């Protein structure tokens, strides 16, 4: 779904897997036909602007909790909890505070209607949300004006990651949630994320995609190519083998990577130990000089 937002990032050479049909969400766990389509990974779209259009047609449903984006609404509290805990630990912020992320700058890549951006703003962060769908950005802006506190702490822009990097922008934290699995060239995409991350900043990736291949590409790209290192681990390869879920990476009790699982009966997402398929992970970007020495 979010793939559409990077569709025109031609500098990345990003190609898209076809991940959704008009009018329904690719995230719907029950949609088997979509999952099957995704796992073959063969259908790639050339007419990228059409995909953005499709996405824009859904845009007005972003804030409908029972509409096509229902899975994202269900997932949102869980990913926010992880992001909060991980950032509090990393930056030694008080996790018991009501707005612990005060003055932390965050880039929400593929922000859609602003579900994640608004939640991060409520935790105190200064958030920039970007998306390639102008309709989504319009809706996100309109929604933000409903709450004065959100309105003053969130900015939305219809722009690609490259476009933003060319403006010389950088952020303490760059988040690509439910995005990377749709990107066909993760190394290039990750590089653009790293370009937007301040020195020693943080990149957070999450996916509830079911294809391990996309995940593997993303993780390998993140580590090997970009010098964005997961904390306290040097071996990401063990991270990516389905069937061998590794233990959580912990530091001071806070998971730096966590599985996300859906309890089908209750429809609730929760954090879990199983990282094999659905996960959210926090990476600390290497300092700039170290990054420069990484092979690309």
């Amino acid at each position: 779904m979010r793939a559409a937002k990077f569709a025109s990032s031609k500098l990345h050479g990003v190609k898209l897997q076809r991940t959704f049909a008009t009018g329904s969400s690719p995230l719907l766990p029950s949609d088997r036909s979509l999952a099957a389509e995704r796992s073959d990974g063969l259908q790639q779209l050339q007419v990228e602007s059409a995909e953005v259009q499709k996405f824009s047609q859904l845009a007005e449903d972003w804030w409908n909790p029972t509409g096509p984006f229902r899975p994202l609404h269900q997932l949102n509290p869980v990913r926010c909890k992880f992001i909060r805990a991980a950032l509090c630990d990393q930056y030694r912020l008080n996790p018991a505070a009501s707005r612990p992320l005060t003055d932390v700058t965050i880039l929400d890549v593929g922000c859609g209607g602003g579900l994640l951006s608004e939640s991060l703003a409520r935790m105190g962060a200064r958030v920039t949300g970007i998306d390639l769908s102008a309709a989504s950005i319009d809706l996100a802006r309109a929604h933000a004006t409903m709450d004065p506190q959100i309105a003053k702490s969130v900015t939305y822009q219809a722009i690609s990651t490259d476009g933003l990097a060319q403006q010389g922008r950088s952020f303490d934290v760059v988040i690509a949630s439910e995005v990377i699995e749709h990107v066909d060239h993760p190394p290039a995409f990750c590089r653009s994320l790293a370009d937007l991350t301040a020195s020693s900043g943080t990149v957070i990736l999450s996916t509830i995609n079911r294809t391990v291949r996309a995940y593997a590409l993303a993780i390998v790209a993140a580590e090997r190519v970009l010098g964005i290192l997961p904390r306290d681990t040097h071996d990401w390869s063990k991270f990516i083998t389905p069937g061998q879920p590794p233990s959580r990476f912990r530091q001071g009790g806070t998971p730096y990577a966590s599985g996300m699982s859906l309890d089908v009966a209750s429809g609730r997402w929760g954090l879990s130990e199983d990282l094999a398929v659905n996960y959210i992970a926090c990476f600390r970007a290497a300092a700039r000089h170290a990054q420069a020495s990484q092979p690309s």
Partner: protein
Amino acid sequence: MIGTALAAALGSNPLTSAMNIALLDRQAPAKVDQRLSSVPENRVSTIAPATIRILQQAGSWPHVQPPNSAAFSNMQVWDSAGTGHVEYHADLLGADILGHVVENSVLIRALTQKLPASVTSLQPASVEAIHLPGFSSTEQQGGSQLATVSLEDGRHIRTRLLVAADGARSRMRSLAKLRTVQWMYNQKGLVATVRTAEPHATAWQRFLPTGPLALLPVRHGYSNIVWSTSPAHAAELEASSPAGFVAAVNEALQTAPTQPSSGLASMQSFLQPGKSMTVPPLVSELAGDAPRSFPLALCHAGRYVRPRFALIGDAAHAVHPLAGQGVNLGFGDVHCLAQALAAASESGTDIGSLAFLEELYERPRQQANVTMMGGLDMLKRLFTPQQGMLASFRNFGLDAVNASPMMKKQIMSYAMG
């Protein structure tokens, strides 16, 4: 009281203590430094251990605990129609007490004392109108507009969540167009403060033909009467002299059962060999304010929430006072909503969003409240007709409960939260 309790509970959790909270009431705020009246007031609440824990968490308990309230460690429920009775003792549960009886004014003062600095008190204030976003998803997509409360003095308050804690006849509830199921019991609840011949630590409750009568210990050796009875009888009691009132209470509590030789008597003695009920202390005088009564009704809102709006306490559910559970259900709402708001703070969730309010507040509380309300209503109905087989069976049922520690323990654990 319940609204103040919510503000105090939110103030005690760092995740929610920075929230901007406005407390509105028609009446002027409670004077925090006011001393206790020499005679207890007649509006009291029976608070269960679960409620005590909530007060402890909110930091209010030191202002509620004895000598500002009275603990009771025994409870005896018996019937005017026979010798059937149930006695509950705290030690059956391994607890020290079953609960406390506390004046509502003491609770309100204790909670007010613990309000966080972020609370703005708009008291007295009169609400003229409220504006809430609709239920429809199209309205929510356009953005969940904030709720607006318009006061009669022309001020407007915009809020992410409007909580109505304005009692059984909630005006906020009708302004929000939330419907209720309700029925009157054709009974009134009469309250009074009395002195007893001896001090006691038992909650006494006798089921009379007209309804239950409770004698509860309150602070400083006084007791409280909660008498549910017919409107005519309530009016008669209110009009009677202090001596006449005392005589009526003693007669109601002390007279022998109307069916002493019930056919089930032999069964009862088999169930409880040598066990007979304890006679409550005599009431010696009426104290404090004159007895007064109020109509009793059961009332339950079909929905507790809508976008940017939530009902708590009696505004959501008013119950028969016969087991003193009303205030405990309200505190249960407070605890649940305060925890939900803390979870929302932790995940950056909009506290006024319908999906959030439904999942973390309405669903769990409706389940808990419906169970308790159904039980109370059934109990009430069971004890209403007073002759024939039903009375005998009820009588037998009380003894059967009394003879079964397992069953008693379950009932008690449930009532104690």
